[in-house]
């Protein structure tokens, strides 16, 4: 049996190399997010947002941009026989789940590296909220990566993949989005970042991440069976 860390590293490196070479997911995700911020900027006709409205705009945009990447996460495995190649290898298949979730996490972090400063430029009066916002982004990304990987692996064999991913994923990430916006709301309050119930919401995000990471690890092997 090949050690799981070697299989994990091989699959992750392969995915990141493919994405860097083809840019099939990240540019679309970033373009979607930036365009949505522009629409909000002119649709709401506001030069500044704060509190729950700012948190809602940020997380709704990031979530739907993430769906674009989640849709494509397993396409190469499905269309180019990667599933078969990986199933023929003497590896723990959970390494595939871990590698795909990590690849998605990297995509989300790269997306936010580009789009969150643009969000701040369009809507925020100061950048003081950005450092603590990073913790919220990281925890919410972990949850999105675990849930997204699980749903993407189930949906990829369906011809209605593009429809199935949002239909199944969005209800599942409602608790994650409630916690993410709950934690972001005080950070983007008028007059500078506040920390009311910030720790509680981070705890909820962490718990969500743990549950879905464990569920993914436990069931992924069965999802790959014929």
């Amino acid at each position, binding site marked *: 049996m090949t050690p799981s860390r070697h299989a994990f590293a*091989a699959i992750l490196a392969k995915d990141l190399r493919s994405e860097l070479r083809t840019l099939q997911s990240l540019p679309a995700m970033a373009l979607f997010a930036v365009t949505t911020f522009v629409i909000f900027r002119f649709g709401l006709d506001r030069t500044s947002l704060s509190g729950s409205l700012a948190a809602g705009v940020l997380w709704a945009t990031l979530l739907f941009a993430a769906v674009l990447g989640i849709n494509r996460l397993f396409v190469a495995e499905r269309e180019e*026989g990667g599933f078969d190649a990986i199933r023929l290898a*003497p590896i723990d298949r959970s390494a595939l789940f871990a590698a795909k979730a990590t690849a998605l996490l990297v995509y989300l972090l790269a997306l936010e590296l580009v789009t969150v400063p643009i969000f701040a430029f369009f809507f925020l009066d100061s950048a003081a909220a950005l450092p603590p916002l990073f913790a919220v982004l990281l925890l919410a990304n972990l949850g999105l990566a675990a849930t997204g990987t699980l749903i993407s692996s189930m949906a990829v064999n369906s011809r209605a993949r593009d429809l199935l991913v949002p239909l199944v994923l969005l209800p599942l990430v409602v608790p994650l989005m409630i916690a993410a916006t709950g934690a972001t709301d005080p950070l983007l309050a008028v007059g500078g970042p506040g920390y009311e119930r910030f720790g509680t919401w981070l705890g909820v995000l962490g718990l969500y991440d743990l549950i879905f990471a464990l569920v993914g690890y436990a069931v992924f092997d069965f999802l790959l069976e014929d």
Partner: protein
Amino acid sequence: MGSENTPPPGPAIRLAGLRRDYGDRAALDGVGLELAAGESLVVLGPNGAGKTTLLRILATLLRPSGGEAVVLGCSLPREAWKLRGRIGYLGHEPLLYRDLSGRENLRFQARLHGIRGERAEARIAELLAAVGMERRADERIVELSAGMRQRLSICRCVLHEPELLLLDEPDSNLDAAGREVARGLIGPDTGRTRVVVTHDPERFLPEADQVLRLGIGEIAAVS
């Protein structure tokens, strides 16, 4: 790698009453045979007779619906995990990522099979030379012809030195030179146990120790 494993006692493949259903339709029904280590089995039959299904069951990619399948001493599907890494599978699809080069694909496969570093590079170089693909090995798969992809797919199939070769139309897309190259890596002289699915009996029957004829709605016949 596969060659480091001790050969199992008994036949390399033993099938008894093997069945696979897709919904109400039986794709395979009542397949039984024994194949000794080092022997070649040629599987013949019309389209839809279940040849590829049989190969995918032996490769642990499909679960049988009934009957018994013991491959290299491992009972399927219960012990499929023990068998992975000991099989070389050449299917209809090359199982190569289109946006990676041939060499990158082979490196990826080598790492999945626990072959790393200089050992992997040496093995990949040896196989690329054997199939005459050294010069094109750093081009992306999408830029290569179907025949070249098949050559690389053969490299992928034997990279980890499997004990059992499962070959579905191994000559497809290959020209005469390619077929000769393939023979050196996956032919009967390699000494490996082989199951070859083909529509070209004239080409493969001379290599066969046993022949399995599958028919649609008929009991499989072994000769």
